[in-house]
């Protein structure tokens, strides 16, 4: 998985609790992305980062925030988890010279 790890890989949490997912890369790539994958919707972009401390919103950013304090780490936070945020979350990376994205193994999040 191209030097990308995600943690945790599985998480069950209760509605209303904050949750943070971590993406860590060892490729020193500039761009990092968070997607969610749901049946019938494919992958949808939540937030992305184009450098340390530089982030922007994607298609489905409501209820999510991100932070990137180091090149290698991109954190996704669910401020107050809801059942509609039950999904599989994927992190991806790409570099300035390439349009291809490389994906992590995913985090399966269940909000009860």
């Amino acid at each position, binding site marked *: 998985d191209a030097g990308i790890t995600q943690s945790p890989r599985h998480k069950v949490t209760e509605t209303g609790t904050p949750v943070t997912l971590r993406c860590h890369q060892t490729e020193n790539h500039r*761009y990092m992305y968070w997607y969610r994958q749901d049946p019938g919707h*494919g992958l949808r*972009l939540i937030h992305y980062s*184009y450098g340390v401390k530089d982030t922007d919103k994607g298609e489905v950013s409501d209820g999510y925030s991100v932070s990137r304090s180091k090149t290698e780490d991109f954190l996704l936070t669910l401020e107050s988890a809801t059942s509609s945020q039950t999904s599989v979350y994927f992190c991806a990376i790409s570099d300035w010279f390439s349009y291809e994205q*490389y*994906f*992590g193994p*995913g985090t399966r999040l269940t909000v009860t």
Partner: protein
Amino acid sequence: SQQGEEDPQALSIQEGENATMNCSYKTSINNLQWYRQNSGRGLVHLILIRSNEREKHSGRLRVTLDTSKKSSSLLITASRAADTASYFCATDTQETSGSRLTFGEGTQLTVNP
């Protein structure tokens, strides 16, 4: 709404046959990419075709792009059981560095031994 839409949603073939998947999109693009996802895994990049290209090959993969029809197709020749996976097209409208991909819902390909 999704930029890319794949057709068919599911495809079942026998080993050795060819598999063709189609993707349609709505807006102008910089490039179009195809990814594969095995069950329970992350996506793996297969091939990228730029907006000024019409056809591209990589091993048993052949991708075509028709920008006038806003459509692309992925052909897998001489399929193998190991090709069983979901295949996604993704359109990139970013013209500068980096990419902003919009994915379709995918085609589930099953190759029967």
